[in-house]
């Protein structure tokens, strides 16, 4: 479509983005579900049993994508919040709010699966390993962001305050990471690293990459869904319900399916 121009700025308005998001959700949600099934199938039935860790290692198919998504979504959230603050773009700020919950969920999931994996493999639920500690701190940063936004009633102030906090956190993340790593190496000798195997069997790698793609698509779909809810809530508060009236009905129909 070289000649068809799309006016992208049109979709910066929440009311215009709302129906677009609704159309996009199945395009991300359905492949996510299919890839989850495929990834879990390969992960559980095709990938060989690890000779050191037995079947317990299979938790990495959830754990590794969750940990990556947790970190990546924080950066994305901070960038969206920053864009929303700098350019006064409401939609970007709403996006940051929508991302924060999913990011916190993935971070928590990576910690939970990590400790479930640690019990049979290391013999302990929790090790003050540099990576685990910094993930825990990342979860604290998410919780700070979410609770700050929840405490502020005025949505615009909540957006901007969240943006300042997210960006300060973003600057702090490398400092925290290095300080934790340094603290750890000085306190307890060498740490056990995840995935220290030099090579992975191809089905294992395939399952992990498929699960990663599935987590990506899932995040996009769920964030768009949450974004639609936030748009509805805020436009409602702002008294702009009229223009969205028809779409509200469409939304409730989608929910019922």
């Amino acid at each position, binding site marked *: 479509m070289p000649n068809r121009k799309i006016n992208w700025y049109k979709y910066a308005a929440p009311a215009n983005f709302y129906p677009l998001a609704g159309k996009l959700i199945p395009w991300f949600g359905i492949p996510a579900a299919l890839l989850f099934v495929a990834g879990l199938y390969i992960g559980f039935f095709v990938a060989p049993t690890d000779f050191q860790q037995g079947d317990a290692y299979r938790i990495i198919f959830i754990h590794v994508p969750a940990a990556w998504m947790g970190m990546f979504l924080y950066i994305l959230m901070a960038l969206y919040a920053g864009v929303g603050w700098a350019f006064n773009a409401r939609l970007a700020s709403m996006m940051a709010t929508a991302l924060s919950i999913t990011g916190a969920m993935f971070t928590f999931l990576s910690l939970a699966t990590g400790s479930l994996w640690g019990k049979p493999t290391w013999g302990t639920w929790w090790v003050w390993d540099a990576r685990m500690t910094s993930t825990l*701190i990342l979860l604290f*940063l998410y919780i700070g962001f979410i*609770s700050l936004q929840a*405490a502020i009633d005025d949505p615009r102030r909540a957006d901007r305050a969240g943006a300042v906090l997210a960006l300060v956190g973003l600057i*702090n993340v490398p*400092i*925290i990471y290095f*300080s934790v790593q340094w603290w750890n190496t000085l306190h307890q000798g060498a740490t056990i690293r995840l995935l220290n195997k030099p090579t992975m069997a191809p089905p294992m790698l395939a399952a992990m990459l498929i699960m990663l793609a599935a987590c990506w698509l899932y995040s996009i779909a769920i964030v768009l869904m949450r974004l639609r809810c936030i748009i509805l809530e805020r436009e409602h508060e702002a008294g702009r319900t009229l223009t969205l009236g028809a779409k509200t009905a469409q939304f409730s129909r989608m929910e019922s399916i």
Partner: protein
Amino acid sequence: MFRWIIRRDLILAWRRRADVLSTLFFFVIVVSLFPLSISPDPRLLKSIAPGVVWVAALLASMLSLGRLFSNDYVDGTLEQILLTPQPLYLIVLGKVLAQWLVAEVPLVLMAPILGVQFGLSQNTLVVLTISLLLGTPVLSLIGSIGAALTLGLRGSGVLVALLVLPLYIPVLIFGALAVDASIAGSNPQAHLSLLGAVLALSLVFAPWATCAALRISVE
């Protein structure tokens, strides 16, 4: 303007001396709770002393954050300050410096006395004081961001803790490591240098973020 703000905040603090003292006694009480709850064994106490003193300093500095902007916000002074043509950066820096002098310097002065209770050697006490001198300004600077963001919110006291404590972690780690190194007999200079680097970085960036947060909160 810079000096005026500092003088004003110091005078205000002097008129409410009880607030300053209560922060100091909070610090002393928290530190004293640890030997009571863990054990009076001198060797154990010596090994936990750096962490205990630093964690108590973190918590005590959280207490005084609420007062940094809230009184000015309530009586409208803050709005006037934001309207002045003077650079807000310097005003914020002045307020943070005054807060540090009032709330944190007494902690730094008290820390060696508490260190003696934990059986730290003279050399270690010096390192502890230096690490607190370098670290507590960072606590004030980062804390001012949290205080500005939560201005006038309900339950802001707990919220400040949630926002600010994760950001304090590098200071806590470097500060406690410096004292640890000194107890172990090795050179704490690397940790102190890193603490200084964190101080320099936050001196530049934190007041800027606080200015932005203040403008957002007051509008």
